[in-house]
């Protein structure tokens, strides 16, 4: 019996080693370990063994079975390895073939610039508030210290609907609307469309966008205005950006300033981009005029504030080096895809 067992085992292991496919291996398994297999048959002939030898013989059979199974497991694993290697070799691809893209659409450069600006100011605790695009003359002009017949009304080339209602020429009327509500302190930015009677050309558009900023609180200073806009410029144009404030005049701020940033193309050395000056004019700003505060019901002895206005297209054109404003409103997909 023992010899038979040894023979079955040896032959099985030899067959296993000779097997070249999982199918061949399976045949060995069925023929040796299966219900009608040789080893199973041997186990069935246990009754021929003396009862006292049966446990030992059973142990032998089980050991042989374990050995065969182990050999089979090993052969199977080797075979899988070979198969896998073969498959991997066959599956080599040309990784430089074109990508399959989802073809996502693209955001308008104005919006990208707007979101940048919003991100910066929301991060500094400003709330985004919008106002109407068709606006009362009262808010667009009068409450901003631009009374009837003020030359600024001409200068800004306003589109009128009638005497009282205009297409807003600036986002500043939102300042007056919010101040008038009287929920102090105020920290807000207000982006939106504005309109001026300019013929369309490479640098003008009768419709464009501004972002207004306003802060009203106790003890707000011109130094705070400088600090805030300096942070803004560095965030928007890079940490090395320097700012320069020049005196200017706006009817609704006093003192007023224009802010230049060091040219982000040449770093301030002077180039074609900044017309050799090293600086690029970026926004107008100032301390909210006390008369404007008064007209909106705020006591200028108690509260001060600053305001600023940025031309969104100006930022977009500068930041993305777009040389013709008309491109922004043509919506040619070849243009939009670049953003």
């Amino acid at each position, binding site marked *: 019996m023992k010899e038979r067992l040894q023979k079955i085992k040896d032959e099985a292991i030899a067959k296993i080693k000779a097997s070249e496919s999982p199918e061949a291996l399976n045949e060995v398994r069925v023929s040796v370990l299966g219900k009608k297999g040789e080893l199973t048959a041997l186990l069935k002939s246990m009754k021929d063994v003396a009862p006292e030898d049966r446990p030992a013989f059973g142990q032998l059979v089980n050991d042989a079975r374990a050995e065969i199974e182990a050999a089979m497991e090993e052969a199977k694993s080797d075979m899988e390895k070979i198969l896998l290697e073969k498959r991997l070799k066959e599956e080599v691809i040309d990784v430089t073939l074109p990508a399959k893209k989802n073809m996502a659409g693209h955001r308008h450069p104005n919006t990208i610039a707007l979101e940048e600006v919003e991100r910066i100011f929301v991060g500094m605790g400003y709330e985004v508030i919008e106002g109407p695009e068709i606006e009362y003359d009262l808010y667009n002009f009068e409450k901003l210290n631009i009374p009837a017949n003020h030359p600024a009304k001409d200068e800004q080339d306003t589109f009128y609907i009638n005497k009282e209602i205009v297409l807003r020429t600036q986002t500043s009327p939102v300042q007056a609307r919010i101040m008038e509500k009287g929920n102090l302190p105020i920290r807000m930015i207000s982006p939106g469309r504005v309109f001026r009677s300019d013929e369309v050309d490479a640098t003008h558009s009768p419709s464009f966008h501004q972002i207004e900023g306003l802060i009203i609180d106790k003890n707000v200073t011109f130094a705070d205005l400088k600090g805030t806009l300096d942070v803004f410029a560095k965030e928007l144009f890079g940490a090395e950006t320097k700012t320069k404030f020049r005196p200017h005049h706006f009817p609704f701020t006093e003192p007023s300033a224009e802010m230049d940033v060091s040219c982000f193309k040449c770093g301030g050395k002077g180039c074609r981009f900044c017309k050799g000056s090293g600086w690029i004019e970026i926004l107008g700003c100032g301390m909210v005029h006390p008369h404007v505060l008064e007209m909106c019901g705020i006591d200028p002895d108690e509260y001060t504030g600053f305001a600023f206005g940025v031309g969104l297209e100006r930022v977009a054109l500068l930041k993305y080096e777009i040389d013709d404003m008309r491109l922004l409103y043509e919506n040619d997909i070849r243009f*939009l895809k670049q953003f």
Partner: protein
Amino acid sequence: MNTSLSWLKAYVPELDVTAQEFTDAMTLSGTKVEGYEALDADLEKIIIGQIVKIERHPDADKLIICQVNIGEGEPIQIVTGAPNVKEGNKVPVVVDGGRVAGGHDGKPTPGGVKIKKGKLRGIESNGMLCSIEELGSSREMYPEAPEYGIYIFPEDAEVGTDAIEALGLHDTVFEFEVTSNRVDCYSIVGLAREAAATFRKEFKPPVVEVKGSGDDVNNYISVEVQDEELCPRYCARVVKNIKLAPSPKWMQRRLASVGIRPINNLVDITNYVMEEFGQPMHAYDLDTIAGNKIVVRRAEKDEKFVTLDGQERTMDDSVLMICDGEKAVGIAGIMGGENSMITDNVQTMLFEAACFDGTNIRLSSKKVGLRTDASGKFEKGLDPNNAEAAINRACQLIEELGAGEVVDGMVDVYSKRKEPVRIPFEPERINALLGTEISKEEMLGYFKLIDLEYDESANEVIAPTFRHDLFRTADLAEEVARFFGYDNIPTTLPSGESAMGKLPFYLRVESVARDIAEFCGFSQGMTYSFESPKVFDKLLIPADAPERNAIVISNPLGEDFSIMRTVSLNGMLTSLATNYNRRNKNVRLYEMGNIYLPKSLPLTELPEERMQFTLGMYGDGDFFTMKGVVEEFLDKIGMKEKESYDPNAGKSFLHPGRQANIIYGGTVIGFMGEVHPTVAATYGIGDRAYVAVLDMPSIVEKATFDRKYEGIAKFPAVTRDISMVVPKNVLVGQIEDVIAVRGGKILESYELFDVYEGSQIKEGFKSVAYSIVFRAKDKTLEEAEITSAMKKILNGLQSLGAELRQ
């Protein structure tokens, strides 16, 4: 406003800076220099030479050979084609290696033209004689220059000296951007005051003194101002025994440097004083003034008047006229009349320096259609106290130039004297506003620089009347800041309580809309809010449709931009057409923009502005692609109920069989469809185009970012497929309504997997197949429950006319 450095130096003699230093410092102290031009930038090695001998060129009829004494060494030989030079003439000579500003054509050449010795038709030439144009100027500015040929210096010019110097061209002209509040800086004296303050140099304005020649102005003229609102001050002086002549070179040069053409001494003096003091003046031939009388009154309606340029102009009754005893002689502040203008025969002259209401001049100038240098100054609102100084300055110059005899006295109609504004001096408030710690003394020092006096007893700062922009502490703070230096003010951040920055809910929803549109391949466009009224016809919108009630702009850029849009599609279709026209394939665009719906017309209150999320596409994709984008968006903003689509949207601009209103929770939130072929053709889109317009305010109402986890199903689902034949006109939406309503609680989902019309289906019917999924949250469903639900669904479908296919 342009000014030459030399003219400024006349009042700030110690000013010694380069053009760039001047530009930078003035800009930082609030007088922005836009740019500058060195008049001698392209002029090099040009000296005064004297022609000692002229010979004919042996080989060229039009050329001559000049021997020119240039002061040192032997005379040099120069060949020229100029017809006007004679022996003895003193002329500008550019020698070998020098440069001139322009070519022979009289036009300036950028970078100049280099002059080298060479041969002209075989004869050596060692330089060039220059015309005024070659020196970068013109006969307009140098009236003594010949019409064609070489500039010739007066006999007393010194040979061998710098010709550029002699012509006054070693100068720089600055272009200033003066802000509208600084009327005083529309004058050279005003700019010089700022320059002196900026560089902390002494300011020496002209000392005005008129000697007078006796007599009394009242013997010559009287003045009556009928409208003192529009003419707060009128000053008049008389000059007799006029001697018209060219003005002296220094005056001509200064005028030329700022672009004013010298004419004669009288004209030049008025122009000179207008630049110097910022006060326009007018000169009348007194002999043409009837009744020795000036009357300042408003024009009659439709009054006609011929201005000194010979044009007849029509007034209305808001235009202020200067008249004599009988007739109008000038439009106040704008232009004098032909009937009273100075001619070569003038004997006695009336000088007018007045102050007119700025707004009225501006509006009159528009009405009359005539804008002049004078009206440009007046409309800014001038200081009446400046008029007297200016007229006296002009009379002083008349005397200095020997242009006539100034009659003693001035007629001055000035009822309401403009007084200086007094502002309480509050240094601590100024520091609080600026965020600085500037001492009181330092502030007073800055005020002194710009002629603001300090009344110590009243503790008030007195703003001179030419500074009509100073009223209160904030204004003084700006003056302090300007001279302290904006760049010396510290940079800090606001100290107040820090707030939470935020984006309002509706903007967050808009932001998701953009994300989804882009995710689905749509790029963002932007189009104008105003468009042509023809848009309605292009979109086939019926004549009586409410969309045609659009707000009209009263002064549009043109008809194409004259109404505020009430539908958002024109911009989208135009943009699609632009792309189609440029052969861009598979274009998908979206826009987030307002439409403007008036509550009533004409507009008495602000219209409703409704944000429209407009999508448009052509190329790959169809109606259902667009529908997918819409549903993807609504799903992302928490609108989880099933949308329904009503094909009876009634949109004239969409394909009648391929359009739908999009309905959510019983409300129409937008519409979509294929663009009507006629409309597509009108716009020039040669492909099927699809659009969707979502009304954002309606959507924002229903959107939410709240989410709730509902658990993942633990019990198995059971799927039943059904296939049916229904009449063609039954909408899939109707079938789905039946399934949704009748499926009951255990209905989890359903999915259309086949729609078929064709050969195997009887005429007028279509085959529709659904996969319906049932599941209970709390148990495994039993067959009976499913059968019962299916039965209900099938009954419902039969009432739609469906026949089940087995």
